C-alpha cells in the first residue's frame, strides 16, 4: 500500500474517529485484490465521465448565476400560484381562529425535498407567529423532528414572540407511515385545521392525508417532488407546487438573491439538455435517411451521456 492511499484512512481515523481496524476489514479486500492483481485499482471511473461533466456544468451554472446575483442582477421568477397563496392560507386560518397543519414529508433531513420544506416551514411559521395562529408540525422522521422544532422556534424569535412557541406543537409522531397518516388525519378531524400544508416527499399516505383534509373543508397546499403522488395532490388540494416548483418556492421565500439565482442556473442546464435532445433527434433522423456516420455519432453521444450498465 502506498502512502497516498493511506491518507484518507489516516484522516478519518484521527479526525473523525473511525478506528483503523474497522476500515481494515473493508479496505483489506481491496488491498488484497490489488496485491494479487498486476494492475493497481483505478482512481477514476471513465463510465461516469458524462455524469461528472453534467455535475460540473450544474456547478458552473450555479457559480455564474450566483456571481451575477451578487452584482445585483437577480433573475425574474414567474409568479407561482401556490406560493402566492401561502400568505392568504395562513390569513384564512387566523380569521377563522383555527390552527395550521404542516406536514414536512416522510424523508429524512438529508433529502433535498425535506431541506426545501424546512425553508418554507420557516416562512410559514413566521407568518403564523405574526398572526398569532397556532401551527402544528407532526413529524415522521426522528432526524427531521429536531430541525423542524428549531426552524419553528427561530421563526417565533424572528417575529418577536419567542415565548409563544410551544415545543409540543412540533411533535415526533411515528416512523410507521400508516400510524403517522392516522395520527395526522386524526389531528385534522379533531382540531378542524383551517389550512393544511403537505410539503416534502410523500408516499401512498399522501392521499389519506389530503382526502381527509379535503373532507374537513380545509384549504390545502401541497408541494412535492414525488411524481407518483402528484396526481393525488392535484386532485385533492387547492394549490399544488409540481416538482421543481418546490425548490423554486424555497429559494423565493428565502429572500436571498443567491438562492433565487439558482432557478436561472436550472434553466441554463435545461437549455443544454434540450440542445442534446434536439441533437440526438437530428442524428437519429439523419441516420434513418442513410447519412453515413450519423448513427455512429449518435452512439458516441449516447455513450458519453449515459452511464454504461
Amino acid at each position, binding site marked *: 500500500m502506498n502512502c497516498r492511499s493511506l491518507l484518507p484512512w489516516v484522516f*478519518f481515523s484521527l479526525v473523525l474517529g473511525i478506528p483503523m481496524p474497522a*476500515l481494515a476489514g*473493508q479496505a483489506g479486500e*481491496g*488491498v488484497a485484490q490489488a496485491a494479487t492483481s498486476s494492475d493497481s485499482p483505478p482512481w*477514476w471511473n471513465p463510465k461516469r465521465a458524462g455524469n461528472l461533466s453534467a455535475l460540473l456544468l450544474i456547478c458552473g451554472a450555479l457559480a455564474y448565476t450566483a456571481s451575477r446575483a451578487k452584482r445585483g442582477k437577480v433573475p425574474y421568477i414567474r409568479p407561482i400560484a401556490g406560493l402566492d397563496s401561502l400568505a392568504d392560507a395562513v390569513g384564512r386560518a387566523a380569521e377563522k381562529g383555527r390552527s395550521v397543519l404542516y406536514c414536512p414529508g416522510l424523508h429524512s433531513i438529508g433529502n433535498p425535498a425535506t431541506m426545501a420544506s424546512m425553508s418554507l416551514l420557516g416562512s410559514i411559521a413566521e407568518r403564523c407567529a405574526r398572526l398569532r395562529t397556532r401551527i402544528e408540525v407532526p413529524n415522521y422522521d426522528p432526524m427531521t423532528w429536531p*430541525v423542524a422544532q428549531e426552524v419553528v422556534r427561530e421563526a417565533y424569535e424572528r417575529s418577536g414572540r419567542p415565548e409563544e412557541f410551544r415545543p409540543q406543537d412540533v411533535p415526533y409522531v411515528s416512523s410507521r407511515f400508516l400510524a403517522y397518516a392516522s395520527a395526522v388525519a386524526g389531528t385534522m378531524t379533531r382540531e378542524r385545521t383551517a389550512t393544511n400544508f403537505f410539503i416534502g416527499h410523500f408516499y401512498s399516505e399522501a392521499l389519506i392525508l389530503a382526502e381527509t383534509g379535503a373532507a374537513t373543508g380545509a384549504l390545502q397546499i401541497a408541494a412535492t417532488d414525488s*411524481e407518483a403522488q402528484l396526481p393525488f395532490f392535484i*386532485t385533492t388540494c387547492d394549490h399544488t407546487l409540481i416538482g*421543481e416548483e418546490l425548490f423554486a418556492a424555497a429559494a423565493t421565500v428565502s429572500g436571498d438573491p443567491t438562492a433565487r439565482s439558482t432557478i436561472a442556473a436550472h434553466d441554463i442546464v435545461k437549455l443544454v439538455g434540450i440542445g442534446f435532445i434536439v441533437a440526438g433527434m437530428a442524428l437519429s433522423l439523419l441516420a434513418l435517411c442513410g447519412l453515413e456516420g450519423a448513427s455512429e455519432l449518435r452512439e458516441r453521444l449516447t455513450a458519453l451521456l449515459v452511464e454504461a450498465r
Partner: protein
Amino acid sequence: MQRLGYRLPFAVMLVLGVFIVAQHYIPHPSVQGPVSAIKQWKQPVNAFIIFTGILGLAAVHGRRVLRRERRWGYSAITLGSMFAMSFVGFVFGIADGGVFQAWFTYLITPIEATVFSLLAFYIASAAFRAFRARSAHATVLLASAVVVMLGLIPFVENACPLIASTSSFLLEYPNTAAKRAIVIGVALGAISVAIQTIFGLDRTVLGKER
C-alpha cells in the same frame, strides 16, 4: 465557542459532502473503504435519534396525561401501547413465535391493513372529483382517463384494438414525456439544493448562528 459550535457541523458537512460526491467517481479502495465505514455510522446514529424521538413522544403525551388535557385518553393509549410493546420485546425477546411477534402479527398488521384499505375509498372519491368535466382541460383529462381505463380491460383489448393502442400511446408518450420533464426538474432542483447545502449557501438545516 458558540461560533465553533455552529461552524463545526458545517465543516463536517462540507468535508463529508465533498468526499461522498468524490467517491462516486473514484472506485479506488482507499476511498471506498472510508465511505463504507461512514455508511455504517448511519445505524448507530439512527438508533440514537429514534431514542430521542421516543423521549420526545413520551414527554408530549406524558404531559397531556398528567395535566388531564383535552383528549388525554388517546395519549394514555399511545404511551401504554408503546411501553407494553417495548417491555414485551425486551423481556421476552422478538423471536418468531413469541408474544412480541404475535402482537405485531395479530394487532399491528391488521390495523395497518385496515388504514391502508381506506385508500380504495379515497381513490374513488378523488377520481370522482378529478373527472368532472368543468373546463376544457378537465374534459381532456376525463376523455384520456376513460380511454386509458378501457384500454387496460382485457375484453376491450380484444374487442377494440384501437382503444388499446390509443391507451398504450397515451401512457407511453405524453404521460412518459410529462413524467420525465418533472423528474428532470426535480433532479436539477435536488442537485442545486445539495450543492448549496454542502457549500454553506443554504444553512437552514443548521439553524441560526447565535
